[in-house]
């Protein structure tokens, strides 16, 4: 019930975002020089920012960019984690130890430091799209160790299950066993890992963006919009600057409720 409600709310949000993008006359990067820091009006329903860009269009675009990027990154992370977890669980103890040591190595640093380091090392001339892709790729590349450990534990428990031993005895190869038996069993473990990663990545991007290390301008992102809150002159004029953060919290709450429901089911 809770999950259905969350799904409906998320779909409604996405639908509203898509409508705003389709119906608006403006592009997310279009600067209306006659309406700089304009309040809400018929042309700009939620006003404009300090360079005259439509806020509603930018928030809607940020919603799509954030969700798409985070979902893609979460899928990559879950895939890497699954590969690592399976390899560690189905190989010799020595290889498993080496693989777990690698995951420990990445876990030994708080990931904001790793993210900052990796993200800041991009060339200064990188385009906004490149920075967006790289930001989410870095998130994907650094987010897998905790998931890999969980999947490793799950796969390890299944490796010694009776039906696995029966499968081995029947002559099934390891790949067949993984595809036919292990993956269906681990689906309940992989899906929560994937869903956990989405809000975590959205939040990480927002934090990175607020530090000036996220998606590059003029591409809209949650992080870049949080930076707008620093502009006290604009805040004195309109409270609509809080719109991105309010929407971000709503999106994260919806995603969190999804995650908790799936975890309970698992």
């Amino acid at each position: 019930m809770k999950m259905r409600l969350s799904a409906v709310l998320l779909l409604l949000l996405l639908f509203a975002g898509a409508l705003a993008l389709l119906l608006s006359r403006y592009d997310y990067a279009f600067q209306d020089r006659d309406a700089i820091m304009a309040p809400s009006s018929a042309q700009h329903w939620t006003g404009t920012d300090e360079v005259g860009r439509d806020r509603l269009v930018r928030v809607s675009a940020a919603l799509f960019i954030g969700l798409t990027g985070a979902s893609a990154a979460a899928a990559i992370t879950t895939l890497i984690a699954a590969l690592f977890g399976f390899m560690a669980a189905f190989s010799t103890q020595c290889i498993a130890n080496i693989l777990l040591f690698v995951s420990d190595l990445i876990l030994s640093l708080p990931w904001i430091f790793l993210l900052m380091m990796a993200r800041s090392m991009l060339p200064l001339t990188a385009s906004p799209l490149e920075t967006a892709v790289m930001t989410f790729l870095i998130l994907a590349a650094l987010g897998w160790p905790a998931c890999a450990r969980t999947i490793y534990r799950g796969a390890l428990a299944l490796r010694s299950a009776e039906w696995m031993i029966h499968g081995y005895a029947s002559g099934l190869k390891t790949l067949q066993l993984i595809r036919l038996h292990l993956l269906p069993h681990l689906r309940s473990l992989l899906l929560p890992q994937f869903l956990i990663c989405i809000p975590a990545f959205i939040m990480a991007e927002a934090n990175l963006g607020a530090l000036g290390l996220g998606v590059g301008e003029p591409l809209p992102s949650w992080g870049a919009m949080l930076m707008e809150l620093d502009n006290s002159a604009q805040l004195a004029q309109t409270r609509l600057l809080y719109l991105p953060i309010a929407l971000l919290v709503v999106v994260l709450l919806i995603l969190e409720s999804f995650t908790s429901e799936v975890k309970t089911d698992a």
Partner: protein
Amino acid sequence: MSLLMIIAMRAGRSLLLLFFAAAGTILLVRFAPGFFSDSRELDAKYAQAVQTEIQEEMLRQHSLRQIAMLQVKGWMKGDFGQSRQYNVPVAELIAARVRVSALLLVKGIFFGWLLAVCAALPISALRRAGPLWGLPFTLLLAVPAAALATICILADIGGPLLVLSLLIAAREFKLLRSLLEGAWCSPHLLHGRAQGLPTCALVALHILPNVTVQMCALMTLSIVTALGALVPIEVIFTVPGVGQLAWSAVMNRDLPVLVAVSLLMACVVGLAGMLSTRPITMEAV
């Protein structure tokens, strides 16, 4: 396996992790696509030929061997090398800031846990406590650290300590609540309740002693959460701590500072990990 052996093995593993963390940081930074990016690249007055020359010169000066040698020399001397942006020894920079960050960290963890315990204890004792009771903490979990810090500044409420405490409280509340709910349902506690023991006595004599070990383990893991939140909080509130130094080093590509801060963080996280697993190890022994 003897206790001494376990400690030696854990220490050896931690040292190995530190070594690889340092090597990994150097490799990551050196082979990042933007390592040779120079602000002069964006300056139109430099012709293509001059820019190529600048890049070749940087390539000569920044071979991996040279960087590694410089780092090792700095560590041998105990100053962790010279900061590129401030031109002072890195150890000096870190020493001046580590106290500020450590104080913020300790106070944040203390107040965060106090808040989480004060909220989780009565809520866990309720027989029909729905998810609405934990709503403030769920809401806090959905707010990025940077956003919470910015809101605090705009509303002129609290400071870095409040933000850090709220973030830690939000993170730990759920775990603490489920831990305490489990403790309230244990048979000896139900027996105590049936005997008419007052709630205060139940909490002091049965609940808290039972969950102390798990709480200590969770508390040490809060250090990792707090370290992650430290950077945006220190940057937004302009607290002169290690987090702000790391951010400034990242923005200015200051490799010696980056490596030293990474090592410091790896040390703290490693220590927290070792402390959190201590009770299990002792039980195993």
